[in-house]
């Protein structure tokens, strides 16, 4: 995995998408695409050869948890790294996301350092598993 990895950011707030995109650009990831909820993101994922998914939970249309489940249920996408970036902070929600197969969970408000750490950790685990 290199810096030309293809990211998809899914969040219903354009400002949050922009913040994440900026942070990713700062980390050297320039290939970033955006979607505003699971319903728009899923077909993009299916046809887009994405390397990494960063998604919010609470969105109109398809929420992030359902998107995660749909991704894990699709044989082509099942191994896609998924980072949840959300304000949802209930313990049972985090457990539910973990059970659904999330690779990382960052709660909002977050820092650039946290985002970098989680992305690096996920990519490291991928590299070790490969």
């Amino acid at each position: 995995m290199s810096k030309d990895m293809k990211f998809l950011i899914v969040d219903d707030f354009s400002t949050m998408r922009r913040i994440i995109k900026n942070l990713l650009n700062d980390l050297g990831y320039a290939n970033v695409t955006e979607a505003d909820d699971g319903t728009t993101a899923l077909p993009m994922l299916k046809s887009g050869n994405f390397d990494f998914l960063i998604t919010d939970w609470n969105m109109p249309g398809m929420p992030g948890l359902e998107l995660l489940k749909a991704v894990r249920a699709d044989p082509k996408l099942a191994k896609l790294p998924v980072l949840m970036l959300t304000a949802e902070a209930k313990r049972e929600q985090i457990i539910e996301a973990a059970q659904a197969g999330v690779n990382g969970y960052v709660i909002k408000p977050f820092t650039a350092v946290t985002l970098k750490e989680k992305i690096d950790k996920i990519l490291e685990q991928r590299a070790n598993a490969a």
Partner: protein
Amino acid sequence: MTTSISSLRDEYGPLVAAMSDALAAGDQALFHAHLDALVHRREADLFKELRKLTTDLQAALERFRIDSRLVDLAEKEVPNAKHRLDHVLRLTDEAAHRTMDLVEECRPLADRAAKQAGEIMDGWRRFRAREIKVEEFQRLVLQMDQFLAATRGDMEKVRGNLAEVVLAQGYQDLSGQIIRGVMKLVDELEHTLVGLVRLSKTDGEMNRESDDARRGFGPAVPGVDHGAAVSGQQDVDSLLAGLGV
């Protein structure tokens, strides 16, 4: 009428019999005494009914007052509050984008200043060490002229943008006022509904747990959310580590 004939018999039977006896015996005074007692008892019942009717009327009037306020709240003020909150959303969205636009404009200017200063520093170091050739020095002076002029312009732009970033935070004041207004409305709505529930005396289940957990609860609000929530990213990390993620 809830009074059955048997209870009427129990209540008035002895009195009517006593009256009938007094009449048969020709005791006028005793008859009148029994008749007065009978009338008095009826009056007491009548007053009791009248009191109940008055209370019911009062409750009906109170209910009407609450009902009409509720209709007013539901028809006018709640949709109005929705518009106001929409406006808050728009204000915060615009302010966030404006701030990011300004910051993004500043970034290349700062990058350019840092890069050019780095280039000049190299020549400057050699100049200080007296290792520079005349032609190189001339180039350095030219470079310095350009750098100073460009940096002055760039930093003026950065300064202007920073002032605008501060200005863009004005949304907090406006949105805060709107939110406070909506909070007042929610408070009134709550009081009106509680009044209505009190009048209706329905003690139905009030705190129904939302089953729509799949959509998420939104950000944790101090003093509002109950239930086990994590306190920060560290808490999330240890929870996930425990789950093997």
